[in-house]
């Protein structure tokens, strides 16, 4: 039973959840990742991101494989979401985007549990490569 579920999860494309308050950037990321073969969901603030991680995306069967989040967002910042997720072992890997770019912000994000941090503006292909690498790493770790 467990094996068959795992197998099923392996067959579907990895699901990326994007949290970004800027609509244009959110759409670009969603479009590019979708074209790269990912299943994509998105939201525009930190609180919604946390809700979607808690409750699943459409129904409880769709698990989030990877999260891409902005740090500065209304309602709840990316760092606050990271803090809220900190002590959950099953939390997905998180890639943080930041426009502030100073070393301190990066360190803080990593300390709060972010897998990677990336400075805005970034190369969209690099971002896709990063998402792929994180997915692969997750899969290897699982196996």
């Amino acid at each position, binding site marked *: 039973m467990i094996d068959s579920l795992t197998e099923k999860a392996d067959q579907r494309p990895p699901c990326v959840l994007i949290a970004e*308050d*800027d*609509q*244009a*950037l959110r*759409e*670009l*990321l969603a*479009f*590019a990742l979708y*074209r790269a073969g990912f299943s994509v969901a998105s939201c*525009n603030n930190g609180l919604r991101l946390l809700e979607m991680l808690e409750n699943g995306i459409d129904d409880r069967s769709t698990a989030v494989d990877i999260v891409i989040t902005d740090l*500065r967002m*209304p309602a709840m910042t990316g760092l606050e979401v990271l803090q809220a997720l900190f002590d959950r072992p099953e939390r997905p890997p998180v890639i943080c985007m930041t*426009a*502030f*770019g100073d070393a301190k912000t990066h360190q803080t994000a990593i300390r709060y549990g972010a897998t990677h941090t990336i*400075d*805005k*503006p*970034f*190369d*969209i*292909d690099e971002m896709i490569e990063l998402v792929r690498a994180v997915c692969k790493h997750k899969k290897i770790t699982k196996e």
Partner: protein
Amino acid sequence: MRLTIRITAAVMLGIVLIFSLYSYLSIQREREQLKKNLSREARNLGEALLFIVEDLLVVRGEDAAMAFLARRNQLNPALQARWVWLDAPTGSRFHPLVEISELDALARRKPLSLMVSSQNGHDFLLTYLPTLSKDGRLGAIEVRESMDELHGYVQESMRRSAMVVGAAVVSGLMLMAVLGSLWINRPVRHLREQAERIGTGDFSARVQVGGRDELGKLAHTIEQMRSQLALAREAEEQATREKIETLETLRHTERLATLGRLSAGMAHELGTPLNVISGRAKLIASNELSPAEAAHSAQIIGEQAERMTRIMRQLLDYARRGESRKQRVNPCELLKKVVELLASVAQKQRVEITLECPEDPTPYVRADPAQLQQVLLNLALNGIQAMEQGGELSLGLRIAEPWVQLQVRDQGRGISAEDLPHIFDPFFTTKEVGRGTGLGLSIAHGIISEHKGQIEVQSTPGQGSCFLVNLPAFEVGAADEV
């Protein structure tokens, strides 16, 4: 100079008084002495003549005696001798020159001297020497001596005394002029010049007046004061320099901090659209998009470029705000205009705008009306945007000496305590991306500071915010600033 004159005058007065008194006393004494001599002389002569005349009267008769006296008188006209009978009737040639009543002493056979003034102003010394004739009549030799010689002598003495006093005064004046100038005027003038220089703030030259007298001590005291003042000023200048340096450092640090905030804000505001543009461009370049998708991406690129342009323009507006043209402004009129301009926006958001202005007296402010309107519009718009569920935006005006205070109060979501210190920072915004760049309040802050005013905010999260703009009241006659 006055002091010297006063001292000189006092000394001279003393000299003149003492000299005059001395001269007067000496002359008086000499005069007495001279009178005594004259009267002795007259008495000697009278005694000699009395012998002869007595003999002549006895031996040769009255006529011969009188002729002798006449002959004698021709020898010395200044010393006239005459025979008088005390019982001779008034008007006779033997009647004495003075009244008989004044000659009581003669009856007691005593010689008598007395001074008489003639009608033409000449003084005489009359000396009477009495004798009894054989038939018992009282007669006397009357010696009349003119006092003109004595008067001449006294006048000469007085003239000499006056000359001595005059010479003493003149030489004393000259001496005092020289010494006064040397000992008093010159050092006092020097001290005055020094004191005036110190008064104008020039502490450079030392105060130097030699001597151990009062002026020397005064100079020493002034010199001490000068050096203390110089030290104090030196210390003050040092303190001012340090203060300026500290301020400069602080300003530099502040500039760096502002630059840092500005850069961070720029990075955030421009980073996102740049990201979108580069991503969309890459998608188009990959040639894998359908024509419709490519067109959509190109359109987004255009929009993002426009957004960046808008940010750049606002930033430039912020950086080089034009010179303000200040004039007398009725802030109430401005508030009314703001209410009119925002009426439709407010209605759409179900916000009611109220305005409260005191009519009398109308407080005026010195301001650039366009800039002040920009500030008020910005504050009011922020207030409206903060009330997503609608509410009341109240604009008000009141006098809070020395300020004229404008109020913009909303019932919106308020500002959190951690955001409150940053709301006037450039690029600080809590609005959703695209709704605000975070420059509005920093521009407002800049404008109000430039008007020598203050902008303050009070806010309770969940209840609303109140922005207070304090502007200096318009003062009649204040110079126009450009």
